[in-house]
Structures are given as C-alpha cells and as structure tokens.
C-alpha cells in the first residue's frame, strides 16, 4: 500500500467520522433546542435558545394551540405539522402525553398555533446555526 493510498483512506475515514459527528450534532440540536450550541461550547447561546423555545412551545400548548397531524391531503396542515416537528423532544413528549389537541373555539387558539409553529421553525434555524458553527462557516 502506497503512502498516497493510505493518506487517501485516512482522509476518507476522517471525513466519514466528521460527517457522522455532524449528523449526531444536528440530531442533538433538533432533539433539544440549544443543545447543539451547548455541545459546541456556546453556553450563553444554548441556554437562551433552550429557555426561549421551550417557553414558546409550552405557551403554545397552554394557549390551546394544536399540534397538527401530518395529513398530506391537506398541504397547509402538513406544513404546520412539519413546523411543529421542528422543536424535537418536546413535540414527541406532547404527542405521547396527548397534549396539543387544540380547542378551535378558544379565543387563543390561533395564538397557540402561532407559538407552536414558530417554536419549531426557529429550532430548525438554531440547528442550522449549530451546523454552520461546527463546519467553521461562522
């Protein structure tokens, strides 16, 4: 085996490890808002994201917003479901505990939906920011 081929193999292995670590980072950043930043040592940012996004999600549930099902026959509902999914483990817990049923007649229903949807979308942005930091783009 030549040095060149060893180097190539070593680089490929490093790239695989890096992409594996990046995928894990993205998974963690999605699952727990702010966890990606905490992992990368950006403690202040991570704590702010964790607090703000959890407060938004809990407020959305408290305001009787709905966690939408992934109904592909209704495109807007499906988009809202994808946005809800963005917040990670809190979404999973809410689904498991049967929260987020939504009360259409409640005066705060639309506000609740807005808080829930935006919390998920912001967490997608936070996850992308963690990815950018990890790859050295920021």
């Amino acid at each position, binding site marked *: 085996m030549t040095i060149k081929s060893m180097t190539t193999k070593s680089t490929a292995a490093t790239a695989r490890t890096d992409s594996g670590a990046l995928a894990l980072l993205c998974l963690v950043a999605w699952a727990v808002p702010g966890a990606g930043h905490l992992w990368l040592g950006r403690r202040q*940012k991570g704590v*702010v994201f964790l607090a703000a996004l959890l407060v938004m999600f809990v407020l959305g549930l408290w305001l009787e917003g709905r966690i939408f099902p992934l109904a592909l026959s209704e495109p807007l509902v499906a988009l809202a479901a994808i946005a809800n999914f963005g917040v990670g483990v809190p979404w999973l817990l809410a689904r498991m505990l049967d929260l987020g049923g939504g009360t259409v007649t409640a005066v*705060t229903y639309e*506000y609740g939906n807005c808080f829930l949807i935006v919390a998920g979308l*912001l967490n997608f*942005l936070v996850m992308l920011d963690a990815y950018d930091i990890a790859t050295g783009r920021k």
Partner: protein
Amino acid sequence: MTSHLLLMVVFALLVSTVFAVLLRDEPRDQLWTGARMFAAFVGVGLLLGWLMYPLPL
C-alpha cells in the same frame, strides 16, 4: 391570558430574543439588535392593527 396586545408583545419578545442571539455574538450587540427588533415587531403590529381597524370583519 386573552389580551391580544400582551400575547403579541410576548411573541415579539421571544422571537426577537432568539433572532438577536442567532445573528450576533457579543452580548452588547445582541441586546441592541434584540431591542430594535422587538420595537419593530411591536410597532409594526400596532400600525397594522390600526390600519385594519376600519375594515369590516
């Protein structure tokens, strides 16, 4: 908590906090950006509210 204004202010506060921390690295810059963004959210919200006031619903 059914005050539309209060809910709008809370929403603006949380969103502007997240955006300010995402966009800026220094705490001083974050505070300044967040404050401006929060003021813009609330100001535009109030303005749009008053513009829509005469519209029948």
